[in-house]
């Protein structure tokens, strides 16, 4: 029977592939590399360290076995049960992990009948370090095989699994609980066979709003990067103002702890006092430490001294380190250090001239200027001035989100046109080098 959670008392665990699959297309080095990366998934986020050994005393002995192999868990040929592992403990089999040698083990295969060895190994090593099965559909510890999980070098555990393993071992010191692990560099780790040409493990998504024709719910500078929020999605720009991906990311998958049914946000800003990130929606707000919501939220916006009705915009002005909230044609000035609203607000007349009376959002940027967003346009107010720079408003889509004029004008425009933009003569010189677009893609 599945026992209560157990864990290793030591943090350094040895492993070894004792027997390899006998009739597999996967070579020994590939199998060892996949085991290495499957263990690394867990050691990346916990204080556990795994090292491969040659002797017969490894904590985690890995075998490819058939049928009855004398451990009480006989395999049953192709399909059915495909692998198992023993929980931590003092027993000599603790940590041992067995794969059914009758399965067609694959890696980066298009064969739908095959069994992705990396995906199964991540699951089994979860058992080997103490995790039991869980019903959550997204979890790698769901008992059923759910197909390949993508590139082993980029695999990121589902949140449920991170939390459960952190409960057993805590968080690895060098890792933020919210950070996504960097893609591994091949020079430090075993090599894996390359993907066949013209194949991708991640299908292109065609969902979410069109960044070139939409106006945004909220815009914020967070940790020096720009975030453009629309509906359930957001786009992210690096500190160098390079769009991370043409495809939007899902707010709820990145910012953990917002209500599952939240379909948009009103305003977002990073507090200068403690660098926590504040999300506003209606009369409530949430405070995030990195990507995770703090306990006790949501709270009413009356905490800020704001009236019911929500806010349109929120940003911290570099000039005086005060936070400004906007709603319709009113604005408030808030002191995040003192945690109180400054007296005399709301006010109808804004400090800044030449910006619209109602805003979608505003943000400070690393050039010292303040940017105000409304509809498809934005205004720049340079540092130490109180008036929008001449030449504004300009197009958000064109200047921030790598869209050409035709794209930003045509609601039906597709992201795929970005690559053809140079041919149309609508070239954004600020982001081009030698006639090529310069993009930074993290995934």
């Amino acid at each position, binding site marked *: *029977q*599945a*026992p*209560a959670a157990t864990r290793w008392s030591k943090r350094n665990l040895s492993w070894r592939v004792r027997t390899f699959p006998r009739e597999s297309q996967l070579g020994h080095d590939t199998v060892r590399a996949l085991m290495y990366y499957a263990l690394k998934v867990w050691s990346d986020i916990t204080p556990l360290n795994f090292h491969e050994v040659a002797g017969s005393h490894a904590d985690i002995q890995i075998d490819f076995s058939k049928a009855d192999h004398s451990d009480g*868990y006989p*395999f049953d040929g192709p*399909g*059915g*049960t*495909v*692998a*198992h*592992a023993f929980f931590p403990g003092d027993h000599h089999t603790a940590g041992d992990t067995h794969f059914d040698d009758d*399965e067609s083990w694959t890696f980066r295969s298009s064969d739908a009948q095959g*069994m992705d060895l990396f995906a*199964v190994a991540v*699951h*089994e090593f979860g*058992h080997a370090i103490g995790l*039991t*099965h869980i*019903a959550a*559909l997204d979890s790698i510890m769901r*008992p*059923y*095989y759910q197909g390949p999980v993508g590139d082993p070098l980029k695999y990121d555990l589902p949140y449920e699994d991170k939390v459960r393993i952190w409960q057993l071992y805590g968080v690895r010191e060098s890792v933020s609980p919210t950070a996504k692990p960097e893609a591994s560099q091949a020079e430090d780790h075993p090599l894996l066979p390359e993907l066949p040409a013209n194949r991708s493990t991640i299908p292109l998504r065609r969902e979410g709003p069109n960044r070139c024709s939409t106006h945004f719910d909220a815009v914020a500078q967070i940790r020096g990067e720009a975030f453009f929020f629309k509906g359930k999605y957001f786009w992210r720009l690096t500190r160098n103002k390079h769009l991370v991906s043409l495809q939007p990311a899902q707010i709820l998958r990145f910012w953990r702890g917002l209500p599952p049914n939240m379909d948009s946000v009103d305003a977002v800003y990073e507090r200068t006092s403690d660098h926590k990130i504040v999300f506003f929606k209606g009369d409530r707000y949430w405070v995030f430490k990195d990507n995770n919501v703090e306990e006790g939220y949501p709270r009413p916006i009356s905490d800020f001294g704001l009236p019911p009705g929500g806010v349109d915009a929120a940003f911290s002005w570099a000039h005086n380190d005060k936070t400004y909230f906007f709603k319709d044609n009113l604005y408030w000035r808030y002191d995040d250090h003192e945690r109180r609203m400054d007296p005399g607000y709301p006010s109808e007349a804004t400090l800044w001239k030449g910006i619209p009376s109602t805003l979608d959002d505003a943000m400070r940027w690393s050039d010292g200027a303040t940017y105000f967003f409304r509809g498809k346009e934005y205004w720049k107010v340079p540092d130490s001035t109180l008036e929008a720079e001449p030449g504004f408003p300009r197009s958000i889509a064109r200047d921030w989100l790598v869209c050409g004029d035709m794209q930003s004008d045509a609601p039906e425009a597709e992201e795929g046109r970005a690559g053809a933009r140079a041919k149309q003569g609508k070239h954004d010189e600020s982001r081009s080098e030698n006639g090529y677009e310069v993009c930074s893609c993290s995934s």
Partner: protein
Amino acid sequence: GPASGPADPSLGVEWLTRFGYLPPPDPVTGQLQTQEELTKAITAMQQFGGLEVTGVLDEATLELMKTPRCSLPDLAATRAKR
């Protein structure tokens, strides 16, 4: 062709026992399980598997039982062996 109605619950007894949804066979009563126990076990399996909970071995439940999976049981023992 597809089954027209719920399957015989005993078909899933071995599977439900192996993965922790039914207690191991009692040496006195042999393989006999009460209908109530079977229904509860199927219900628990359906909940754990993210299926619609019907309490009967319907097509979706049988399909999930055929899905390749880990050998370890899903649930801890809820009662001790007699």
